[in-house]
């Protein structure tokens, strides 16, 4: 671990911005929330904030665009299409533990297995991630219930923790090590007490999370009762409030579902195949020719979302696909809180 003072950290970012598009969290005064912003020029934008908790935006939008072209027709040249060359490097600074973890989960679907999504993989490979500790937790944060800590433990290139005058920097990949080595003049050794002061903040944030989420069941205690609750009336109850807007799936860092559709291109002769985010909460999502629909009721679809994350993906990919970031709770106009639902399930 090394120390970097705030001025040198900005120098480091300026240097890294030469590698690709640089994004940092900027605090919005009104909402007191962080939003990722692209840095076009230095100094860093006013309000740049590597502290606090996760930004409103997830990282998934960097790896899987809301809409993108994945093929075109006529197909000449597609075989040789150099995806790497098409995709820029992103440097993302200040991503929190829950979001870094979410990308590791989505990687299991989009990269691992018999087929790889080459576009997703290229964007992930070209994502330089500088994660940072949470110095406070939001009201809806519940990463602790998923067995995680509010500081990044792996899945990053570099990770920074705020201490007096600057940051403690940990490396998490070869790329991260190279960045530190190549810029060694910007770093110094740790001073006494710096690690301890980092740990004090970490423990304080964790204690706060535990207090906020005391009354809710931990993620591992949810999967089994869910399997028993398939026909519980609680689903109709909860779904009665849902507005079917799909905000929860759009804002979720691990919701990776998409739709492919073909669009005539500008020339009118060929077409482009577009990949677009999709939401399992809308009626048409699973509807088939002949109008058959395996999840016709809203309660079926709400159930599907939670089962997919807390049961199905545990069976198919070995992990709960929720990191406790709490965005779905913030985003829900009907105030549906996953933690409350799970309290009912696991009662």
């Amino acid at each position, binding site marked *: 671990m090394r120390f970097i003072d705030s001025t040198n950290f900005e120098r480091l970012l300026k240097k890294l911005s030469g590698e690709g598009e640089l994004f940092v969290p900027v605090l919005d005064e009104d909402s007191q929330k962080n939003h990722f912003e692209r840095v076009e020029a230095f100094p860093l934008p006013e309000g740049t904030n590597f502290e606090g908790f996760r930004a409103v935006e997830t990282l998934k939008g960097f790896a899987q665009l809301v809409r993108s072209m994945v093929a075109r027709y006529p197909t000449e040249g597609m075989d040789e299409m150099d995806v790497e060359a098409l995709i820029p490097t992103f440097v993302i600074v200040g991503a929190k533990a829950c979001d870094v973890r979410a990308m590791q989960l989505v990687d299991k679907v989009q990269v691992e297995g018999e087929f790889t999504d080459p576009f997703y993989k290229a964007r992930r490979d070209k994502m330089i991630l500088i994660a940072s500790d949470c110095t406070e937790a939001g009201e809806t944060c519940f990463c602790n219930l998923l067995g995680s800590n509010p500081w990044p433990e792996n899945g990053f290139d570099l990770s920074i923790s705020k201490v007096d005058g600057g940051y403690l920097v940990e490396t998490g990949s070869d790329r991260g090590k190279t960045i530190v080595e190549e810029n060694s003049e910007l770093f110094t050794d740790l001073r006494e007490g710096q690690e301890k002061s980092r740990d004090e903040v970490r423990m304080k944030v964790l204690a706060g999370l535990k207090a906020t989420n005391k009354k809710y069941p931990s993620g591992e205690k949810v999967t089994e009762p869910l399997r028993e609750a398939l026909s519980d009336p609680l689903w109709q109850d909860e779904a009665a409030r849902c507005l079917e807007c799909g905000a929860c799936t759009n804002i979720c860092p691990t919701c990776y579902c998409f739709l492919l559709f073909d669009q005539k291109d500008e020339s009118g002769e060929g077409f482009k195949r577009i990949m677009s985010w999709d939401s399992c909460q809308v009626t048409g999502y699973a509807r088939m020719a002949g109008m058959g629909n395996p999840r016709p009721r809203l309660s*079926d679809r709400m159930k599907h979302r939670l089962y997919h994350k807390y049961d199905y993906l545990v069976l198919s990919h070995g992990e709960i696909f929720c990191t406790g970031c709490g965005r779905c709770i913030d985003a829900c106009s009907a105030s549906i809180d996953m933690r409350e639902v799970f309290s009912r399930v696991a009662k």
Partner: protein
Amino acid sequence: MNNPYYPIDTVLEDVITETPTIKTFCLKPVRPVRFKSGQFMQLTVPGVGEAPFTPSSDPNIAEKMEITILKTGKVTDALHELGPGAKLGLRGPFGKGYPLEKLEGKEVVVVGGGVGLAPMRSLLYGLFDDPSKYKRISIKFGAREPAELCFRGQYNEWVNLSENIDLTTTIDVPHPEWDGKVGLVTTLLDDLDINITDSYALSCGPEIMLKFVTLKLLEVGYKPPQIYLSMNRKMSCGMGKCGRCNVGHYYLCVDGPDMCYDKIKHVPNVFG
């Protein structure tokens, strides 16, 4: 680059009208596509879209492929308008295909209805490779009316291949040109002369048919592990990435589309 969203250029060589609403499309992809019977393809009609279909042709032939398709919506309507020479695209094959190894030495009952006969034909071609590997191949086909029984011209050829192959058919309601059995395809399962404990049953057809075939099979003594169903869910990517085709925790496009009933019997709305 290996881009799984990119379709292989394919030429439509011929179109065979099977029934008033079903046609077989004979395709030639620019490079051979090897598939196992029961695996499916995503077929692109340029500018219209893609839809999943299971080839109905012999899995031993990779240079050409036949797909038998019911006209039922956007992509399939557009396909039915096309003639020889049209340019299409293919992605795949996807999915696991039929568990042929499991069927060896068994009495195999194949139950198909409507356009479900199409994927069943590629299963049959797989079995016909060496019929002696199976104790029995008993084919039960049903359709609404005689004109809707796909591949009727081939039935004789099939049963003549080997002693242990038999085929019976039924239509849903009486028809002036039909002197065979009348009733839903499940009626063909009424007096089965099969040693059920030594048998597997495989079925493909509309969801409602799958449901009643399954209930019937259970009633006559099949256990859930002996029943394989070609399930249907909306699909997009075909390879477990778009999240669309769940049946319980399975992705049909990866773990199916033919699923052992034992694995999915607890899923709510399993038959849609």
